[in-house]
């Protein structure tokens, strides 16, 4: 048992490099009749896997539609998916692999901001265009090749605060944020904006991602008695709302982007009624394009599209049209993206600013009778949202 030597190493060790080299051999750069490959790095496992799944659904639908419509100038579009489990290390690995082995000109994703920031230097160096679906304000300055289809977290707050102050009349605001980069930056942004508008923040505390029990915070909130509670969080907010109603906390509840998630409605039930939140995708079909998208999506997946699916769908279509126009050279794709102006997307007219950040309308929404609905006076016009963007 103690006499061991190299021959006792399991054969699997020998197989690994072979597998690896076989993999390298197998994926040669494409010829003209072969499919055009682009990459996607998403959290397909781990705690954030559900978002990866939504995005995937949007991507797959867009790709299917492009391919039934003659593909990219006759060549089919295919997506090579890589999982990053929302871990920057794995995102960097996946980015290098996609750029180096698969020679993709464009990578969609990732969803986690930290992953995008880890991808960015590699993408810059290897000249791969990244179309992130991530929210952190830091991505704005991540690099020349880095675009994003989702508005920056700050622009949501820019749209939300005037609504809260002027339409709802909130003077005292409590903030209960998920303690990660998203929650922290939302809390900081709203403090700045809200206080600038003359309001006061009467309570601000963080909680770890995944928290399911908010009863102690709720007891405190009852004492602090704010006009509204802003909860930038993921599905944790469902538990919060449920418990807040159970414990008779009767203020207005304000959420952030991840709130529009059918799971949250299912989890929170009637407790989700009346929650106000900013979003980038309307509930009713915004335009004819969106109407078609919703029908096709329902056909394919048997459900309503999610806002991330819609963003991903737009992203693929914008990339697809760039590919059609300029081919697969990343630098030319990049230039085409910067030149994109008022692209008709299912999430509204879409442009990119000089940082690669998206310019698109942000609307204020709420929940009525268990449905996400647009608030009529909350914006929705491109002009107003654009105004907010430029103020950013």
């Amino acid at each position, binding site marked *: 048992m103690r006499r061991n030597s190299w021959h006792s190493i399991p054969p699997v060790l020998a197989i690994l490099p072979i597998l690896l080299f076989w993999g390298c051999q197998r994926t040669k750069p494409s010829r003209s009749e072969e499919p055009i490959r682009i990459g996607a790095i998403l959290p397909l*496992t*781990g*705690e*954030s*896997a*559900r978002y990866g*799944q939504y995005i995937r659904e949007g991507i797959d639908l867009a790709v299917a539609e492009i391919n039934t419509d003659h593909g990219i100038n006759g060549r089919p579009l295919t997506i090579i998916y890589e999982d990053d489990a929302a871990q920057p290390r794995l995102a960097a690995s996946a980015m290098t692999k996609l750029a180096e082995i698969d020679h993709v000109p464009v990578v969609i994703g990732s969803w986690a901001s930290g992953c995008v920031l880890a991808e960015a230097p590699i993408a810059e160096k290897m000249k791969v265009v990244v179309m992130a679906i991530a929210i952190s304000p830091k991505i704005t300055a991540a690099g020349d090749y880095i675009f994003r289809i989702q508005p920056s977290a700050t622009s949501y707050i820019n749209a939300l605060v005037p609504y809260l102050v002027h339409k709802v009349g909130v003077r005292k605001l409590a903030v209960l944020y998920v*303690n990660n980069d998203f929650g922290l930056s939302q809390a900081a942004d709203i403090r700045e904006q809200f206080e600038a508008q003359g309001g006061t923040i009467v309570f601000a*505390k*963080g*909680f*770890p991602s*995944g*928290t*399911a*029990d908010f*009863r*102690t*915070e709720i*007891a*405190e909130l*009852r*004492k602090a008695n704010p006009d509204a509670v802003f909860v930038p969080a993921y*599905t944790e907010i*469902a*538990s919060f709302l*449920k418990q807040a*109603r*159970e*414990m*008779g906390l009767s203020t207005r509840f304000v959420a952030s982007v991840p709130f529009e998630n059918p*799971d949250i409605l*299912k*989890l*929170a*039930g*009637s*407790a989700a009624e009346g929650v106000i939140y900013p979003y980038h995708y309307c509930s009713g079909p915004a335009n004819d394009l969106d109407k078609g998208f919703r029908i096709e999506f329902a056909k394919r997946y048997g459900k309503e599209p999610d806002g991330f699916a819609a963003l991903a769908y737009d992203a693929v279509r914008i990339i697809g049209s760039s590919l059609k126009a300029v081919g697969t050279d990343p630098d030319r794709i990049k230039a085409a993206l910067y030149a994109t102006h008022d692209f008709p997307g299912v999430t509204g007219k879409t442009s990119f600013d000089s940082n690669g950040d998206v310019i698109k309308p942000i609307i204020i929404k709420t929940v009525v009778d268990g449905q996400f609905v647009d608030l009529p006076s909350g914006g929705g016009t491109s002009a107003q949202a654009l105004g907010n963007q430029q103020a950013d």
Partner: protein
Amino acid sequence: MLLQLLANGLVNGCMIALMALGYALIYNTTRIFHVAHGAAYTAAAYLCYLLLIVFKWPLLLAVVGGVAAAALLGVTMELAVYAPLYRRGASDLISLISSLGLYVALVNLIALLFGNETKVLRPGVEKTCRLLGVILTRIQVAEVVVAAVLLPLLVLFLKRTLWGKIIRGVRDNPVLAEVLGIDLMAVRIAVFAAGSALAGMAACLTALDVGMDPQVGMPVLLTAAVALIVGGVGTFEGPVIGGFLLGLIQSLIVWKISAQWTDVITFGVLIVFLVFRPEGIASRRRRLEESAA
């Protein structure tokens, strides 16, 4: 306000205590740092979900099913992994690493089968009761009732009956116990079944109250392990006391500081106990390793 905080701490303490007592049963007897206990916890919650939501079983049956599933999984892990290691005389560290492997594999299997998103067993707003200004949901009341019945009964059972004696005997000296004709493997199976069933009970009740996702097991397990050390390894009332203490401390942290510091302070408490009172609250004896040469 204060009463509500105490009540919240108490309800959480009940669940930590259940989990910690189950963990203590296994740890005290087998000395395995059974991380996969967290996976048994998660599995119980998901089976309860499957029975209740998918198969539309009645609530009580679904909970029984969840508890039974945890017990079955615990016993299977013992038979398939730990027992062969024990027979080979492998060290605790081998068991620990195996246990980590089991945990990773099982949790990912659950994620594969059920998806990564949060699930709740009772969507929507729960009916509440009010008592002295304290608001509790019916599920929370059920949690307290179950814990109030199960915990004293179990602790008394373990302290007073032959079974308790056998388990303590095995803990103190497994070799001697075997010489005395105790079927060690049967005792191990029994503690894995009982300990995992307790984890399953805590899991089902917690899932009914606040829902679950595939990753819930590890933090619960770690909290239970801390409760065990703080309360006192080698006793059966120790983990229960430790569980309630931790429940209260965590409620206090959320109130006075912020939930984001809960882990740091919980494990800070662990370190303080490990260094200054490794025998825990409940044990009067110092640990043998400390004094004997």
